[in-house]
């Protein structure tokens, strides 16, 4: 894992993935959760009202069953029918609540890397990249540019030359890094992390934490992390909200 050393934050010029991730974001958005309340079958499950500044990582902690993951599902736009949610999700002034999941531009990172098994490693990264930016150019140059971005992105996470590999041949840590890069290449305006480190073993967990938090801070992405590992919260360095079994 020597390649990860090159990824440490601070003083490094913007990487390819970051540059493609967009100058339009340089102003930095804040993620505002306005009077969010989630009910389960008419009974209140949890509520939250907060603001996450650009580059800030807000950690939500609490025992399982208090609705942490349900909250993320509501924010991302796939609340299960058993729940009802109210309150607004805003990126600066843009109300995301009425938008379908695919238009919210919220980067989602699960505890499993969930690399699509029917695509190659490079294909997974390409899957996350937006298309419209390159509409003007001819198809061939577009494709070349995308391939170049993918190769550069893989190099950044120490996986140069892995584009054609079958994701199942990767190690756990390699998959986690590809998953992170896939989200970043999709140019999210904010990040939602659903216990992203809980399935990694101890040494990898440390590396992934610094990798994720460095990226998030440098790109100025407001980030909401759900976890029940206190070390995650400490590493994030941001505010922490403890959710108890309220009702």
């Amino acid at each position: 894992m020597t390649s990860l050393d090159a990824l440490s934050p601070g003083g490094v010029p913007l990487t390819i993935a970051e540059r493609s991730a967009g100058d339009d974001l340089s102003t930095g958005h804040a993620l505002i959760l306005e009077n969010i309340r989630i009910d389960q079958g008419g009974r209140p499950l949890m509520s939250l009202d907060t603001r996450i500044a650009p580059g800030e990582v807000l950690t939500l902690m609490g025992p399982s069953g208090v609705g942490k993951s349900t909250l993320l599902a509501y924010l991302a736009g796939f609340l299960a029918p058993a729940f009802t949610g109210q309150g607004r999700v805003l990126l600066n002034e843009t109300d995301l609540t009425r938008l379908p999941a695919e238009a919210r531009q919220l980067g989602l990172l699960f505890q499993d890397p969930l690399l699509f098994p029917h695509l190659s490693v490079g294909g997974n990264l390409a899957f996350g990249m937006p298309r419209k930016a390159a509409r003007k150019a001819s198809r061939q140059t577009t494709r070349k540019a995308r391939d170049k971005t993918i190769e550069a992105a893989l190099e950044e996470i120490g996986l140069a030359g892995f584009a054609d590999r079958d994701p199942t041949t990767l190690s756990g840590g390699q998959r986690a890094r590809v998953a992170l890069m896939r989200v970043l290449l999709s140019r999210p305006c904010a990040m939602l992390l659903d216990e992203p480190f809980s399935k990694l073993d101890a040494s990898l967990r440390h590396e992934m934490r610094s990798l994720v938090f460095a990226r998030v801070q440098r790109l100025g992405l407001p980030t909401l992390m759900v976890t029940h590992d206190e070390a995650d919260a400490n590493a994030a360095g941001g505010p922490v909200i403890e959710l108890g079994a309220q009702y």
Partner: protein
Amino acid sequence: MRLFSPTIRTTPWLAMALLSLPVAGGLAGVLAPALGWLPALGGDELTLEHWRTLVATPGLADMVRLSLSAGLASALISLLIVMLFLGAFAETRALALVRRLLSPLLAVPHAAAAIGIAFLLAPSGLASRLVSPWPSGWDTPPDYLFPGDPWGLGLIIGLVVKEVPFLLLMSLAALPQCQAQARLRLARSLGYAPLTAFAKAVLPGLYPLIRLPIYAVIAFASANVEVAMILGPSTPPTLAVAVVRWINDPDLSMRFVASAAALLQLAVTLAALGLWWLGERLVASLSRSALTGGRREAGDRIWAGAGGLATLLAVLLLGGSLMGLVLWSLAAWWPFPAALPSPLSLHAWQGALPGLKEPLTQTALIGLAATGLSLVLTVGALEAEHLRNHGMAAWAELVLYLPLVVPPVAFLFGLVQLQVQAGLAPGALAVILAHSLFVLPYVFLSLAESYRRLDPRWAQVAASLGHSPASLFWRVRLPLLTIPILTAAAVGFSVSVGQYLPTLLMSAGRLSTLTTEAVSLASGGDRRLTAVYALMQLLLPALGFALALALPRLLMRHRSGVLNP
């Protein structure tokens, strides 16, 4: 891509319409002539005369009795075998092996299995040759009536052989839904012997989940035509076979009686289902005290032995049938007590080849069309569940089983009458649509489980990366489900290949497929040619399954995550 969501949302309704309208219309189309009204044939007044003719038919009571007993007995025996097998072999390697063999077994067309069994168990069949002249002492074929024994035993055997794999498959799919493993382990830890644990802890949860498939089995067995034509008695035959004979009677006025008889068939099938339902109540109330009586062991060894024996017997029957078919197709000269024909020759195959071309193409084309249509509707209906964010309503599942529970002979004949009345030409299109009625439910049942169980996070990842529902469908869901979709297609294709009645009725006998040819050959005397057609009937679905197995392994050989999810 704007069209994606509305298109997908309409497919469940299209599927429902395809399944329910022909059944309802067909029943209406048979009701009117049964009451004397069929202007195309000069029937323009309502009368009960045709019912009187039907009731006066000699042997009608025997026909009804045969249909009822074959339906109930074969379902009961099949259910017993499946439950004993599951109880005795739950959580063993044998189960995993059987699970893998199931789909190909299901793919064996009914007619082919029936022909194989007839060849195996007939007086001059493979079974009696193997015990002759020693130890049986038979120098000439023994004198017993099989197939076609008056009690319908041959028919019941033929039905059981085909129903066991189907019920087994449905049960295996249902077991995880009723937490079978946890229930079994709990009961075992409380000191219950394996089979008793299965019967007392798992069965009460499993049975309600496989009730509809069982009803489909009873309905099929009580109304089936081709198995009864090959293995059932002929004077009198089962009611469904009699209906087909009347339909094909050159005297067109017999169609009125046929209509009345088709409705009677519906009543018989409903009666069989009603009797079974009463039996369910009875067993439930009788077993209530036994369930909690605390007895840890109730003849476990004997029942497990019976289960093993029955399974072995079923395997031997199927294997022997297949062997018999192969031998007959290669036989030039095969006098009675000889266990093997000698010499072996390809004569029958060579002779059959020119005639095979047309039925083979017809079968393949009809099968591909019906499978394609069913697959599109099934995938659309399942995708609609995702779009609407909730699963299928209970009534929709009943509609799915409609063509499997209403006797085909009743509603298909009604459709033929409507076709005649409307002046539509019978032909390939009508046959394809009629096949789809039976292909669609199986394709749906085969695919639904995998489609619904696909990890929802794949969709969430794709959406959060900015992909629309349409893009998610084409670029994520379909590729991830390549293997289940191809398997469902193979199942659907095999169902279509095996269809006899829809082809016969909807084409007015003008289209010949492998199955219609095999069934009509089976009633003749040429065993060699019959064997060739029965084997071709087996070969085509087998080819489908081989493709479903090999294609993804070839095309996605560098994507092991799709192949071994």
